[in-house]
């Protein structure tokens, strides 16, 4: 069991200070702290499974032929030992499938970064309006980005396509305004 330290002075805080109803001063720096401890704190780190050694005609792990298979991979169907079994959101996957899923960005549960293409497109449509003339370049780019990334993975948090639609509408209006302006100037000459 690790000890909990004050987040200000990093001095260890005695167990008597845990799960109090109010803030209490840290015994070392007197900063008011409240520590909510959960049962996992007393359990410590969970031990990983090693995988059992193969006996007689038992099915073996695809990656470790000496280990007994305990479960098939839910994606590729390969037999896995307890060591190779990666449980993710209720599914059992082999390390290779997890790696591929991570590379392709298909497993949201291990995704750590997402580019918000809709946000980029909308900002590209809106911000250059300050300079006006810059919209001649950015409006087509914003429309291209909106169409190109219409089906790309968006935020993990639910987001609608409204930003893409707004970007297309605003950029479309900008292009329309530029076209009218150019036509008007050309007709005057």
């Amino acid at each position, binding site marked *: 069991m*690790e000890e*909990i330290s*004050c*987040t*200000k*002075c*990093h*001095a*260890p805080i*005695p*167990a*008597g*200070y*845990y*799960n109090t109803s109010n*803030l209490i001063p*840290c*015994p*070392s*720096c007197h*900063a*008011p*702290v*409240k*520590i*909510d*401890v*959960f*049962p*996992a*704190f*007393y359990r*410590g*780190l969970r031990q990983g499974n090693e995988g059992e050694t193969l006996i007689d005609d038992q099915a073996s792990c695809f990656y470790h032929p000496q280990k007994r298979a305990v479960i098939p991979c839910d*994606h590729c169907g390969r037999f896995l030992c307890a060591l190779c079994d990666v449980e*993710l*959101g*209720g*599914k059992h*996957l082999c390390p290779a499938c997890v790696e591929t*899923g991570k590379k*392709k960005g*298909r*497993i*949201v*549960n291990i*995704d*750590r*970064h*997402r*580019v*918000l293409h809709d*946000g980029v497109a909308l*900002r590209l449509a809106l911000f250059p309006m300050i300079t006006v003339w810059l919209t001649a370049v950015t409006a087509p780019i914003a429309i291209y980005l909106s169409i190109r990334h219409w089906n790309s*993975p*968006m*935020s*993990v*948090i*639910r987001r609608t396509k409204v930003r893409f639609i707004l970007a297309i509408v605003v950029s479309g209006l900008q292009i329309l305004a530029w076209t009218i302006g150019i036509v008007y100037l050309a007709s005057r000459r």
Partner: protein
Amino acid sequence: MDHWDRLFGLEAVNTKMDGRGETKYKRLPGRGPRRGGFIAASFSRCSLYLGDDHVLAVDSTGFSEDYKRFYFSDIQAIITRKTRRGAFWSIILALMIASSSMGALFLEGESFRILFWILSGTFLVFLLINVFRGPTCICHMTTAVQQDQLPSLNRLRVARKVIEMVRPAIERVQGKLSPEKANIAQSEGILHPTRSLRRPRARGHEIRHDDGIMHMVAFALILLDGILTGINLLHHTAIMATVSSLLSAGYCICIVIALVKQHDSDLPGSLRRITWASLGFVCISYLLSYVLMVTSLVTSKPEKIATQWDMYRTMLDLSPQDSLLVMGVYAFVAACSLALGTLGLVRVTGHRNDSANASRAGQNLGGKARV
């Protein structure tokens, strides 16, 4: 829909590709910037979401998002620490209101008065919002392998609310803390309330001794400047104003050095706070000087000011007897300098005496042991 979508699409493993199998996230209250120091260092805004089996921390810049997942089964503790950030901002805003109200009351031009009233009104709105949001805090979530700050929980009220929302979800997975564990934990603290604690240490660094020389120099210069400004208030001369400017430049540098030196040092908290307050005072006094400079440039004849030196001469010629605004600024600077300088010197002297006594006691003990 390819095989990846079929596999990860609907039930358990979450994917966004078809929009149906995704985790249902519930937005938790609070949003805040990730800070590097006292002022927000990045543009990323953080917020928390409650998922089926984890808490999702999202750092969003508007262009991209970074995610961190805290699974309910892994969360060991949530540590909330109350900070003084909110109170500090309230003081800063109150000072801003006071200085802009002073400008509004004492300036002569109607347009300037309106501008300063608008400014003080804006600061007042910010102050009210800050007060209404309640005391500030820093929240950390601890797992077996990491301790991460949750920047969105930067107000005590919000932090309490979120913890109460997350607690049932964690207890659903981990179970409740057994009464025996809780009792043991409580009694440990009660049985050994005065047990010796390790000396506080900064992240990976030992606390080092600082005799506070730089603090002493800084506070001595502040005190000297306070005295000079006080004399200037009664009898203004250009030479004294020049010396005062040089002194303020000197103590500004000393304060910065002192702030760097006090990091990871054994200097008492009160002394550190006085040093930070001195930095705040320097910022405010420079802001006030800027206001004075702008008003003097506007009110004096601009054709007279051709070079930087002329501008400086105009500033030096500003006498407290000429205008109430200048007098107010001088009085404020003198009062703050005298207070900060005296307090700082008293505290740093106390620290030096304590250190000297401690080392003398150590030597005596060593001597006796040798005898």
